[in-house]
């Protein structure tokens, strides 16, 4: 399987997944069913997570396609801009959903404000993603354009990949600044990950999980900083990353770590670990895998210039 193949497999998740999660959320509001609200927020989070490889495999596909004859680079760029716009809102939707899930643990109900924000973000995401999906179809399937339709013009989103690329190359201080931010985000994230997961593994048993739970948003803040800085590099110099085996593994372990975070946020077994308790085996296993997957994310990040062809 190569990147274009992966893109063909994953490219429906952002649109179809968001539509399903949105439907579940609306249904849960109609039925006043908190459990269903929770499920819909979990689906939003997972869809946002899968959007990452969907987007990245798309960037790799663009690099492969641009070399082929009879392919309109404008059509690719328009699709990319739409997908990038959708991806940005998808990250906000996933982040807001995560905050909702995190809050639910503390107060056992959903804040109307959070649900409203997720709802609005999801609609915007779906709009951009739907547009991106349509424009993606045009790249290889011009037959879906109705005969007398005008040739599509203009940008596909509110932001263009070309402008991000220009930003990073025009302001030479930006790349080093992003690196500093990326490393600060890295330790902010990793410190909280260590504290919470080492507790689950048996260190500092005097602290309950619910006490440590308060720290989790700080690790998500670190993750957010690193997603933004990392994405800017990928958009600016995609060729450095897309054929880089180290980047592939880094993203793979990032996905594992993302699922670990969902476990810590929504599952009952870590939540029930009180002060003095030994965590159940399943929680310990997830805690160990969380620490390990972040270590691997860092390893393959550091190996980008050495294992792969980057820089």
């Amino acid at each position, binding site marked *: 399987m190569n990147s274009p193949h992966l893109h063909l497999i994953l490219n429906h998740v952002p649109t179809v997944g968001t539509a399903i999660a949105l439907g579940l959320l609306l249904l849960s509001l109609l039925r006043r069913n908190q459990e269903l609200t929770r499920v819909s927020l979990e689906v939003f989070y997972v869809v946002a997570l899968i959007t990452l490889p969907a987007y990245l495999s798309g960037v790799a596909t663009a690099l492969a396609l641009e070399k082929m004859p009879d392919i309109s680079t404008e059509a690719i760029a328009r699709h990319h801009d739409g997908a990038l716009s959708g991806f940005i809102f998808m990250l906000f939707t996933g982040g807001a959903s995560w905050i909702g899930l995190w809050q639910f643990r503390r107060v056992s109900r959903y804040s109307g404000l959070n649900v409203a924000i997720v709802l609005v973000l999801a609609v915007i995401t779906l709009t951009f993603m739907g547009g991106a999906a349509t424009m993606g179809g045009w790249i290889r399937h011009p037959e879906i354009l109705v005969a007398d339709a005008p040739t599509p013009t203009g940008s596909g989103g509110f932001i263009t990949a070309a402008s991000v690329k220009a930003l990073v190359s025009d302001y030479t201080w930006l*790349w*080093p600044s992003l*690196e*500093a931010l990326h*490393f*600060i985000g*890295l*330790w*902010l*994230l*990793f*410190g*909280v*990950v*260590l*504290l919470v997961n080492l507790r689950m593994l048996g*260190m*500092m*048993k*005097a*602290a*309950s999980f*619910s*006490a*440590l*739970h*308060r*720290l989790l948003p*700080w690790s998500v803040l670190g993750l957010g900083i690193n997603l933004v800085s990392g994405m800017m590099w990928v958009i600016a110099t995609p060729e450095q990353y897309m054929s880089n085996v180290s980047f592939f593994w880094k993203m793979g372990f990032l996905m594992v770590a993302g699922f670990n975070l969902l476990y810590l946020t929504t599952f009952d077994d870590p939540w029930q670990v009180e*002060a003095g308790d030994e965590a159940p085996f399943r929680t310990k296993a997830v805690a160990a895998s969380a620490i390990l997957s972040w*270590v691997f994310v*860092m*390893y393959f*990040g*550091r*190996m980008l*210039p*050495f*294992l792969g062809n980057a*820089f």
Partner: protein
Amino acid sequence: MDFILRLQHSAVMDWVRESGSLWGYPAILFLHTIGLAAVAGINGAIDLRVLGVAPRIPLSSLTRFFPLIWAAFAVTAVSGLTLLIADAETKLASAVFYVKMLFIVLALVNLHLLRTRVFTDPAFDSRPLSTQARMLALSSLALWVAATTAGRLMAYVGPVAGLK
């Protein structure tokens, strides 16, 4: 100085720098990264607790993390020293390097003060933390941010080797 430069051109350091093996320069760089992530990260999380982010974590339970921070610091320092010797000519000529060292020394002094001024108070779990404790936590975060930034800028500002 001459001694360090001689070390830089020793067989071991030539291997670290130029062998192209993943066990040479890249592995040491990774150890440095994971070490700094643990040192600044755990210290940062403790700072957040002192600042009041997760007030139900008993401060007394956090004292167990101090030995872990120092162990991680040992890994960071040894790997960092190796990276320094392997590229001494460039790094010792870089002003940013000395700025980074200054911030690290200050951050470590800060950590020590946090441990001895705040974490030795037997009643620290039963009453609100002092302003001094909060100031120490804030300066700790600021110093690690500064040290990290200076560390990254070493690859861009002043003399820069071809090494990553």
